[in-house]
């Protein structure tokens, strides 16, 4: 049976592969979350994190833009109170708040005919509705990653747009190439979602990730 890694484990896997992931803290208590938030700097996001917790937004397991200690304390207590037995091991994940008006989704999937494929889509968490997603068979060589960015129908959104700078294409391309390399090297990976990848200023920042692994959890 395939299983999913927790958000934190997923991000650690991406980080180990060379993708920039902003610092975050995995803690067990509200008090530790407050301490972590003070270390990272406000505002922060607080999420309930565990292997059996996917699709956190839909289940209201994310608290965004917490401005101060009191807000973190309240959010931490609330999230811990929502835990259910079937969630298994859970922790609190404290992340620095990332804001940007543009979101994308990047990912990896195994196609039954063509094998590992890298995906890029506009809209981040709204990607399924927007439907502007493009694929390339991994590994991405030469200009494949740049071409993937160019293949988006509304890719102009990633250029200079309403006061926002153009996205750093080289950084985005590197993320896509790394996903492709993971697809080729790690045959145990069934799929990866980086969703959303928020464009903050010009930098694409990994805000949430979900890695699906073949076989039973070790």
């Amino acid at each position, binding site marked *: 049976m395939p299983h999913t890694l927790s958000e934190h484990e997923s991000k650690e896997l991406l980080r180990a592969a060379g993708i920039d992931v902003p610092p975050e803290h995995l803690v067990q208590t509200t008090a530790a979350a407050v301490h972590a938030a003070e270390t990272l700097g406000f505002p922060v996001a607080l999420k309930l994190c565990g292997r059996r917790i996917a699709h956190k937004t839909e289940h209201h397991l994310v608290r965004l833009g917490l401005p101060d200690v009191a807000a973190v304390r309240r959010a931490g207590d609330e999230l811990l109170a929502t835990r259910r037995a079937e969630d298994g091991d859970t922790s609190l994940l404290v992340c620095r708040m990332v804001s940007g008006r543009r979101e994308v989704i990047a990912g990896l*999937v195994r*196609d039954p005919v063509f*094998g590992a494929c890298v995906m890029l889509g506009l809209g981040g968490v709204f990607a399924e509705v927007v439907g502007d997603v493009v*694929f390339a068979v991994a590994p991405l060589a030469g200009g494949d990653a740049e071409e993937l960015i160019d293949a988006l129908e509304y890719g102009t959104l990633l250029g200079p747009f309403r006061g926002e700078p153009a996205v750093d294409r080289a950084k985005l391309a590197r993320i896509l190439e790394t996903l492709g390399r993971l697809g080729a090297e790690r045959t145990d990976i069934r799929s990866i979602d980086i969703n959303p990848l928020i464009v903050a200023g010009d930098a694409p920042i990994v805000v949430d990730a979900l890695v*699906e692994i073949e076989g039973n959890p070790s």
Partner: protein
Amino acid sequence: MSTLTARFRPLFYPRGIVITGVSGHPGKFGSVAYHNLMACGYAGELFPVNREGAVCFGRSTYKTVGEVPHGRADLAFICTPNSVNEEILRACAQIGVRAAFVASAGYGESTEGKDMERRLVALGRELDLLIAGPNGQGLVSTGVGMCAQIVAPYPPPGPISVVSQSGNIASSFMNYACLTGIGMSKAISCGNSAALELADYLEYYSEDPDTEVSLAYLEGVADGRRFLDVARAHSARKPLVLVRGGVTDAGKRAASSHTGALASDARVFAGVCRQTGIARVETIEEAYETAAAFATQPLPRGPRTLIFTVAGGWGVLTSDACVQAGLELIPLPDDLRRKIDTMVPARWSRSNPIDLAGGETRDTVPEVLELMAAHADVDAVVYLGIGIQAAQANMFRGGPFWPEYGLERIGCFHEGQDRRYALAAAEASRRHGKPILVASELVYTDRAYGNAGPLGVTEAGRMTAPSGQRAIRTLARMVGYARWRARHT
């Protein structure tokens, strides 16, 4: 000759062909294939085999393959029932046959035949026999005048080679070859693709010196990675135009991820085409037009397009299509505007599209075609409205006054002009190494008359697109491919 071209040589350039399943009945597949081979002027020797030695088309037949002299045939076209084919193929190998096209049915397309198909593949390997099919409708190779198929038509010779996972669609492409006069080198229907599949033929076409463009109809890909490698290597050498059938959005991947949910078969295949430089086309007719353009026009160096028209509306629609297709409808270069100002009255458009508004005189159109093609800021030209003068000449011819009142003189002048324009477009295109696509629906609507405009385009070895929009879409595919080539080779 590469190993690959040597391997396919007996299939596409046989010195002699054994045909099995030939019969006294002219409707049997073997008889039809035998007929088509003779009717289309196959250059080598034919060895028809009929188990009773029946006379077919007034010619005697061999009773067994073993009676065929050794070393004279290197291809077998098999139309016998599947139950006898193993024995027949062994006999073929004995007389020096190196390749077989198995047209017979009853193999892997049915549950009962799957085992027989596996044995067929094993036999091919054992006998070192290249086996195409089974259950295919045949192949053509114009280099040796070979129409080894159980259906019509036989295309004129030319630079396009076809491989199709549907026999009917191979025929459709051949019908377009006959219609347009832009001919084929080879065409094969894969049948069940038991031993040789679409990618194998494409790999061969990519190395075959007689193939300049490949045209494929694809439904299923057996080995994705191999398809990707073959297509990429093909595009690096020559264009590959492809129509894909059977793509639905149903093929969502089994994964609990968003990426998995978004990974439809159609989206992944669009990525494959982008990565491999395949010119993907939705319809058979536009696929043929695209292959024909690749085969007869220089590759555009970029997307900067001029539209040249003799009337407003065509230019407007074609401009819209140009922008929509991602081509660059460039502002008319100043020096070009100044030159044309000196040639026609001031009512002309003075912008792109160039519309002379009827102000042209005898030599204006060829001169403007030359000026456009020669201009450094122009990569491609779409020329609209060829044949309208000849169409009027045809009306003169059919009217009550022909040939009096000077109608004959003016009618013949019009027809001569349209022919000249067609030839001038091709000449300017060749001289400057830039595509000039000619479009007019008269290529279809005036076929019975034989309009001098489209006929002139054919005489120049090119084809007339049936509309400006279709010419633009073809051009956009050429620009896309040229861009891919520039990036990848």
